[in-house]
Structures are given as C-alpha cells and as structure tokens.
C-alpha cells in the first residue's frame, strides 16, 4: 500500500468500530505464531476474550508499556511479527515510545491504537484525543511514516494484512466505541509470563 493511501484517512472520517470485533478480526489473521502484547485494561481483556494464544502477553499493570515490551520482543526475535495493542490513554502517557520505535525501526513491529477518546475503564473520563490530539498524526511526526487510521473494518483488515507481510514499523489507528470488553483476563502474572515465553519458544 503506497504511503499516499495510508495518509488519505483522517481521524474524523474513520468509522467508529468495536474493539472486541476488531481484536477477533486481527487474531483470526495470525497464522505464523505472531506475538501480541495487549495493553493495560480493556486492550488485554479483549485479547484474552479472542482466544488464549500462547503468543499473547496480557499486561495487567504498567500503563503505557505495551509498545516498549513489544519493541523488546521484536528486537529479540526479528523473524517473528509482533503486534502491540494500546489504548489512547495509555499511548498518551508514553508518547516518547513512538520516537523510540521510529529510531529502532523494527520491520516486524505493528502498533494498533484503540482510540475511543476516553479512559473507559475508570469511568469514561475524556482523553486528549477527544479534543485536539490525533495520535496517528503524532506517530507520523515521530517518524513512523507507515501510520494510518482505519477507515472501516475492511480497511482495518487490509492494514493488518500489510503489517503481516510488508516492512514496518506500522501504526494502525482504530476509532472504537465505549462498549465493555468481551471478557476479563485471568490475573496470574507469573503464569502469563511463563506461557508467553513457551509460546515464543524460549526456555523460562
């Protein structure tokens, strides 16, 4: 997909979709043991609800660190595709991570940003994306040229397909609604880590 096509979708023109639905669409396309790092709260809850793949990592705390963790995985295993799923509030807390990813430029990393303009899990208080901040614009300005809003579900899937086959790093922005997540992650951090390492073929 040419860069011009990536740039053609504005946040305002992007359809408001559903996180659980898009997470299932993403996971359904994973056929090569791709790693997925689910950010704090609803991002990892919907990842859990989409099916507990051994290559999924559910980040229960450490808000903002799904992208850095995914970057570390991507650097250590350059042959594996790695996805970070991060909410708008979380990314706003760790914007510098976009610059770090751009500087490292891992070809195997894709970042998915779920943007509903709110801190949904704490009572739906507004985030800065509900006023002025365009996180895909921020990602591009940080040096991540392959960044795009998803126009609709079909476009989201085509962007995921690009991220699975082409050279990244990629950033896919998805506007989402305020629906509750489709499940709740089991709260056993040590077990999550062990299972993830086994999923990545690493002796823990």
């Amino acid at each position, binding site marked *: 997909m040419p860069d011009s096509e990536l740039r053609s979708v504005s946040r305002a023109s992007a359809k408001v979709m559903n996180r659980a639905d898009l997470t299932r669409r993403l996971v359904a396309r994973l056929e090569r043991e791709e*790693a997925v790092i689910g950010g704090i709260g609803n991002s990892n809850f919907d990842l859990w609800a989409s099916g507990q793949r051994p290559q999924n990592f559910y980040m229960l705390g450490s808000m903002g660190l799904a992208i*850095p963790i995914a970057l570390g995985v991507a650097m*250590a295993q350059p042959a594996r595709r790695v996805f970070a799923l991060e909410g708008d509030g979380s990314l706003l807390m760790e914007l510098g991570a976009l610059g770090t990813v751009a500087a490292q430029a891992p070809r195997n990393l894709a970042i998915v940003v779920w943007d509903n303009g709110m801190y949904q899990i704490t009572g739906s208080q507004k985030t800065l994306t509900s006023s002025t901040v365009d996180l895909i614009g921020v990602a591009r300005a940080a040096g991540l040229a392959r960044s795009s809003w998803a126009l609709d579900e079909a476009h989201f899937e085509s962007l995921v397909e690009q991220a699975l086959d082409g050279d990244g790093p990629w950033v896919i922005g998805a506007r989402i609604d305020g629906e509750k997540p489709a499940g709740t992650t089991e709260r056993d951090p040590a077990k999550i880590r062990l299972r993830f390492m086994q999923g990545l073929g690493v002796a823990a």
Partner: protein
Amino acid sequence: MSADSFAENWPEIAVRALKANDVRLVAYVPDNVLAPLIRLVHDDPYFTVVCPAREEEAVGIVAGAYMAGTRGIVLMQTSGFATLPNVLASLLSPYRIPVPMMISERGAVGDFQLGQAMVCRTMRPVLTALGIPHFAIERRDDVEFVVGSMIGQAFATHEPAAMILSPLLTKKPVPTAAHAAAR
C-alpha cells in the same frame, strides 16, 4: 579477575561482567557518571544499545526482550530510578521478569543540588519496600564480582536486581602511583 584488571577502570570491568553473563541488550537514559560505560557499549558490536525517552520505557523494552530470549540491562541515574516504582511493582515483580538495573548514585555525598539529594533518599526505601535485591558497589575491585553475582542471581531467581554505583566508586579520586609512593 584478569591480570590486567588494574589497568581497567570500573566501566571496562562492568563491560567484561556483562559479556560474561550474556547480557547483550543495553537500554539507558543518559547520565554523566555513566557516560564512559555508555560510550563503551555503543562502540562494542557485542551490544545492542537503545536510548529511549524514559526509564520505564527502557524497563519495558528489556522485559520484552527477556521474554523473547535476549538478556538485557537498564542503565540510569538515581532520579531516573525514582520514576520506576509503578513498573517495578506492576510488571517486573508480579510477572517475575529479571531485569538488572545499574544505577549511578547521585545526591549521596558532595552533591550541591538539594533535589538530587532528596531523590537519592527515596531509592533504598523503594527497593526495600518492593523486596528487590540491591547492592552498592564502592570499590573497583568489587565490580566484577558484584555485577556478575547480581546478574546471575537475577536470572536464576527471576527477580529484578539493582546495582548501585556509589560515588566512592565513580567519583572519588583514584590514588596515583605518586600518592602510593609517598605513603
């Protein structure tokens, strides 16, 4: 300890200890005291070096790399450590991810910035409250043993570890041959 260890200063010895323990990824937020070590790892192709914007980002990167099979370390100064309690308590400790940290101790003695001194006083209470093993290195002769031991312990026990570089190691003038002869 190798025969030429007295020709080395602490950064060269630290590099040797990192290599001996297969620590290949270095993530740091800059610090003047750490600058010689940072230069060494940048110049050595053995290491992959990342300089993120915040210390907690560095911890996240090294944690991810560990789970994917690469050992790393985070370098920072005391004030950077003071930004980390949340990630230590919500990621490294509960998930039992061994991330070694090397912290240059600022504000301990002879620092004229009150803020540095006050931040420094929070470091050991935080490490103690979280039950994270920590040890201050004060003498060049101890660098290889302490760095190697703490890194080895961290990976064997799946706990983070904090190696504190005391100003006695990094700032106190090293006696010269002339000094030694005069005594």
